[in-house]
């Protein structure tokens, strides 16, 4: 049997993680602001700093970070449960999302004591939100070609360049940016480093970009000779590529790669209950449940590897690729099902929700690595490259 496929076997969530689920559900009953389905469908694109602060007050931001830094010291399984419940409810989690998922674990793993002491408690308190500075106007899938540059100067670095498609940079205090710190673009993966950039520094300009749904969730960030102190460097100088690769395993493996359209399924089910379901509707509804149940088991298998301290980069890529395909298939197939009869009334909220997801769903297989990049990684995992 191929080693890659052998990674995927049924793994039950530990009982402690399942017990934690009841706490999360209770919290959401109490604290989740009511919102129409098309707003809830935004979920991990939905920015609500107040909700994030409530979650932080409950101790659930930085769930896997050690208690000494303000975290909850819980395992990856419990984080899976928390994330699963937040997304299933369509909670607006964008504010703390990146910090909780990847910036926090990255700082914990590569940061100095001083960096950990400074940033991690702020992340856990929801007073520091992070964004990811990877893509640039000329660097998308070819991430190693980034040209934003940090040049050594007295007491630190001077940062010049531009990042784009940065989610919620306009609302965040910090960005962890992948930039060139030595050599030339032709050096590719060599000479790259990660810096924590305080977005309030002089020379940083953030310009939100409006998307096709009318939202402005991403932005363009320009650095004009921004002075960064020495302690802005995170991890080792020149080790940026390895650090980013490890970070992407966190970014790609979670339930957010399965649940992006799940609010729409609840919304559609409510309509079927009101107006009746035919055999085709039932088969479609059941098919989504069949796929989600299976994908969830694949995702838990990846989580189990994370819980064991591994970095399941290829496995995470495999689940993300098929998971986002599922997320995109939901609005694609529901457009057809909902309008199968032009004389049938469509609930306006359902109509807006399916429209929002149809429009935004192309991004599902862009954010965190395109299909082509992921399939290339899987091929490498299969020994073909």
């Amino acid at each position, binding site marked *: *049997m*191929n080693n*890659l*496929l052998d990674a*995927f*076997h*049924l793994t039950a969530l530990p009982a402690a993680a399942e017990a934690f689920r009841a706490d999360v559900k209770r919290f959401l009953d109490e604290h989740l602001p009511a919102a129409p389905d098309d707003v809830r469908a935004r979920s991990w694109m939905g920015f609500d700093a107040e909700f994030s602060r409530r979650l932080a007050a409950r101790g659930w931001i930085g769930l896997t970070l050690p208690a000494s830094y303000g975290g909850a010291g819980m395992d990856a399984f419990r984080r899976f449960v928390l994330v*699963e419940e937040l*997304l*299933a*409810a369509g909670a607006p989690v964008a504010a703390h999302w990146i910090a909780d998922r990847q910036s926090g674990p990255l700082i914990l793993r590569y940061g100095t004591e001083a960096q950990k002491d400074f940033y991690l408690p702020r992340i856990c308190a929801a007073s520091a939100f992070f964004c990811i500075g990877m893509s640039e106007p000329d660097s998308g899938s070819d991430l190693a070609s980034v040209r934003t540059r940090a040049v050594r100067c007295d007491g630190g670095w001077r940062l010049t360049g531009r990042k784009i498609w940065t989610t919620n940079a306009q609302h965040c205090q910090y960005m962890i940016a992948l930039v060139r710190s030595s050599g030339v673009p032709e050096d590719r993966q060599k000479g790259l480093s990660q810096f924590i950039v305080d977005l309030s520094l002089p020379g940083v300009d953030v310009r939100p970009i409006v998307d096709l749904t009318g939202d402005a969730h991403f932005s363009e960030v320009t650095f004009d000779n921004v002075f960064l102190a020495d302690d802005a460097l995170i991890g080792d100088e020149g080790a940026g590529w390895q650090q980013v690769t490890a970070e992407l395993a966190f970014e790609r493996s979670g339930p957010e790669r399965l*649940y992006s359209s*799940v609010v729409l*399924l*609840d919304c559609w*089910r409510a309509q*079927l*209950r009101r107006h009746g*379901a035919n*055999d085709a*509707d*039932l*088969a*479609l*509804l*059941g*098919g*989504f*449940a*069949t*796929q*989600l*149940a*299976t*994908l*969830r*088991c*694949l995702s838990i*298998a990846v989580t189990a590897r994370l819980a064991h301290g591994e970095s399941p980069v290829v496995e995470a890529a*495999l689940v993300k*690729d*098929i998971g986002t395909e599922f997320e995109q298939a939901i609005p694609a197939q529901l457009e057809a099902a909902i309008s199968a009869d032009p004389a049938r009334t469509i609930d306006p909220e359902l109509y807006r929700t399916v429209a929002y997801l149809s429009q935004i769903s192309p991004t599902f297989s862009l954010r965190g690595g395109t299909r*082509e990049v*992921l*399939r*290339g990684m*899987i*091929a490498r995992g*299969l*020994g*073909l*490259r």
Partner: protein
Amino acid sequence: MFTEAIEAILRDRATPEAIRAIENGGTPASIWNAVEEAGFLELLTPESDGGAGLSLPASAPVFTALGRYAVPVPLAQSIAARALLRGTGVAAPAGMTTLAGACRSGENGALEALQVPFGMTCDHVLANVDGDLLLLDAARAERKPCGVHGSFSGTLSWGINAVPAPLGANGEEVLRFSAAIHAAAIAGAMDRVFAMTLQYCNDRSQFGKSIGKFQAVQHQLSVMAQHVASAGMASELAFSGAGAVPERLATAIAKARTSMAVPLVASTAHALHGAIGVTAEYDLQLYTRRLHEWRMADGSEAFWNRMVGSAVLAQEHGTFADFARTAPCAAA
């Protein structure tokens, strides 16, 4: 341990040559006797009754292995028949017993079992007749082959005098167990088909390099791997329950998801193999023919997804995500 032991026997006996010989009308006696003598029919029988006493989850890799080797006898079905007969007071009959998940009763008391796997070669049929459990003698049936090249399946009919009294009211469990067996078989055969295709893409050279070096081919293999992994995971769900028989919703999810993966996996395997893949001489067809047969056996994804969909609609509390999370663990 059991999986390794049974695989060792299958590697020896269920060779592609042996499968072809039986498909061409040869006797399956040698393979059957080997697995029977090794005690594999009693895999799920409690240790107190002289069996191996495996739990359902522990037996899952064995059922998958039977698919990986395209075992040309109803071994999986005969193992399941023993579990289904337990509690009826009737001992499992000697010889090859297969399962018929759905039968049609005629007006005159006659009975018809449609497209029964191994219907042409079996000795007995354990059948679901409108929810009743019946053990039928295949020697007394009129057998009509399905007519598909190399297939052992056929439609069996019995006159009123050959239809015995029901042994119990657990007939529906026959359909469930049979579907779970086919889900596992699909997962196992896909594992084999994927390994063969990956190997072929490494070996076959065109334009001066192995075709696995071409990005278009790599991406097809990557997508295929995703569906093979999904099918493997789904088939494990069918066998994850604590009971003696696969649970209803877990089986529905397993049979539906594995069946959904069949067209993509089989067609990608053939596309990447080129013309050699569709020849009788090359082994790929031994598995892809079965993938298609097993997708249609006991109801395709259209049947099982409809059942899942009805359950989603009927769910009293919780979200769609709650359903997807809890359904595979729901009892019965």
